[in-house]
C-alpha cells in the first residue's frame, strides 16, 4: 500500500535516511524501533510530507508522491500531494492539539473545513471516536485541561476523524508517565484489531512485540533488520540483540 524505494534524506552533510526501502501492506501494523538519532522520526516525517527527501521514490497505492529521476526526488503536483495527505494520518509525540479549540472542535474542524464533511456528520463521527477512546465526557474541555494520556487519545481521535487509510505514530507514549502509557497503547491495540494500517515508532518493546505484525530495527538511517516480532526478538544479529537487550 505504502512504498518507499531507496529514499535518502540529508540535513546539511548529515545523512539521516540512507537508501532505505520499505513497503507496508494494507492492514499491516509495523513497529519501528531503533536508537535515538537513527532517523525514525525523520522517516515518518518524510512519508507524511513534513520533510522532503533528496532522492528516492515514495508511493501510496500507486499514486506517486515523488519519483527518483536524475539522482533527485521529483515531487508531483500539489493536487496529488494533497490527495495523499488526506489518505494518511499522523500522531505526534507531543500531541500538538490546537489549544484554542475545545476537544470536539479539535477533532471535527479538519473534517468540516478540509474534507467538507457536513458538520452534523462530522460531529456524530467525532463523538463516536471520543467514545472509542474513552473520553465522551471531555468533548467540551480544552486541551490544557487534559492529562497527557487524554490529550494523546484526543489526538488519535482527531487523526481518525479524517478517516485515513494509514496512520503513523511517532513515539505516541514517550511523553507519558508509565502508568498512563497503557491507556494510549490500548487504543492503538484496538485499532490493530480493526485492521487499521499503522506505522508505529516506539520504544515500548513489549507493545511492539505484542501488537505489530512486523518490526523494523533502524540504525544510522537504514534498516538493520526486519521481520516478525518472533524473529526479531530471537535475532542472531548481534546489533539487534544488543539493542533489544537479550
Amino acid at each position: 500500500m505504502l512504498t518507499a524505494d531507496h529514499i535518502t534524506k540529508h540535513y546539511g552533510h548529515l545523512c539521516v535516511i540512507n537508501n532505505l526501502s520499505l513497503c507496508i501492506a494494507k492492514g499491516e501494523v509495523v513497529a519501528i524501533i531503533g536508537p535515538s538519532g537513527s532517523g525514525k522520526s525523520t522517516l515518518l516525517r518524510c512519508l507524511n510530507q513534513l520533510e522532503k527527501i533528496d532522492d528516492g521514490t515514495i508511493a501510496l497505492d500507486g499514486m506517486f508522491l515523488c519519483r527518483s529521476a536524475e539522482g533527485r526526488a521529483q515531487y508531483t503536483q500539489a493536487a496529488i500531494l494533497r490527495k495523499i495527505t488526506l489518505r494518511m494520518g499522523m500522531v505526534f509525540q507531543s500531541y500538538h492539539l490546537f489549544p484554542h479549540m475545545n476537544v470536539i472542535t479539535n477533532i471535527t474542524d479538519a473534517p468540516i473545513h478540509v474534507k467538507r464533511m457536513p458538520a452534523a456528520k462530522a460531529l456524530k463521527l467525532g463523538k463516536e471516536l471520543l467514545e472509542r477512546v474513552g473520553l465522551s465526557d471531555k468533548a467540551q474541555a480544552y486541551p490544557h485541561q487534559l492529562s497527557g494520556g487524554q490529550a494523546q487519545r484526543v489526538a488519535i481521535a482527531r487523526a481518525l476523524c479524517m478517516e485515513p487509510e494509514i496512520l503513523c505514530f511517532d513515539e505516541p507514549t514517550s511523553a507519558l508517565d508509565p502508568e498512563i502509557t497503557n491507556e494510549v497503547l490500548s487504543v492503538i491495540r484496538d485499532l490493530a484489531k480493526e485492521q487499521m494500517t499503522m506505522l508505529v515508532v516506539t520504544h515500548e518493546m513489549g507493545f511492539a512485540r505484542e501488537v505489530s505484525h512486523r518490526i523494523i530495527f533502524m540504525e544510522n538511517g537504514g534498516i538493520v533488520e526486519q521481520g516478525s516480532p518472533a524473529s526479531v526478538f530471537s535475532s542472531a544479529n548481534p546489533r539487534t540483540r544488543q539493542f533489544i537487550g537479550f
Partner: protein
Amino acid sequence: MLIKFFNDPERLWKLVTLLTSGVGTTCAIFALTLLLSAPLGILAALARMSKHTAVRGPVIFYIYIMRSTPLMLQIVCFYYLLPQLLPFRANPFGTVIFAFVINYAAYFAEIFRGGIQAIPVGQREAGHVLGYERTQVFMRIILPQAIKNVMPAVTNEVITLVKDTALASTVAITEIMIIAKQQVSVSSSVEPFLLAMILYMILNGIAGQFCKLAEKRLGYY
C-alpha cells in the same frame, strides 16, 4: 495667567463643550488607524517572514523607516508630499490617516511577527498532516493563537495611539489638542490643557477597558 476659570462654571462649561467638539475627530483618527493598520500589520508581518528576499527586503526597509523616524515628521512629510504625488486632490484628513496607518502598521507588523513566531512549529505541522491548506493553517490555527499572544503588546499600542492622535494637530486637523492650544492662546490660561489631559485620560480609560475585555475573552484557554 494660568488658572482663571475654575470658579466660573459658565466659562468652564463653555470650554468643556469646545474641547469635546474635538473628541469626534480624535476618535475617528484613533478608530480608522486601528482598524486599518492592524490587518495591514498582519500582512506586513507575513511579508516580513517571507522566504523570498525580494518580498522580505523592502518590507524590512519600510518597517525600519517607520520605526526610526518621528511620527510627527512622517505626518508633515505626507501632508506636503502626498497631494503632489497623487493625481487626485487628497484631503488633509485622509493624508493624516494614511500617515498614521502606515506608521502603526509597521509597529503591528513587528508585534504580530513575534506573536506568530512564538507559536510552536508543531501546530503548523499538525495542520499540514490534517490536510489544511496553507491559508487555512494560518487563518484557523496560527492567527487565533497569535492574536492572543500579541494582546498585551496591542494594548500598549492602543494606549499610545490615543495619545499620538494629538500629532494630527501639527497639520491643522481640528481634534482635541489643537482646540486646547487655540483656547490657551485666546484665554491665556492653562485650563484648556488641563481639561484636554482629563479628556485623554477618559478616552484611554475607555480604550483600556475594551482591551481588558478583549484579553479576558481571549483567555478562555
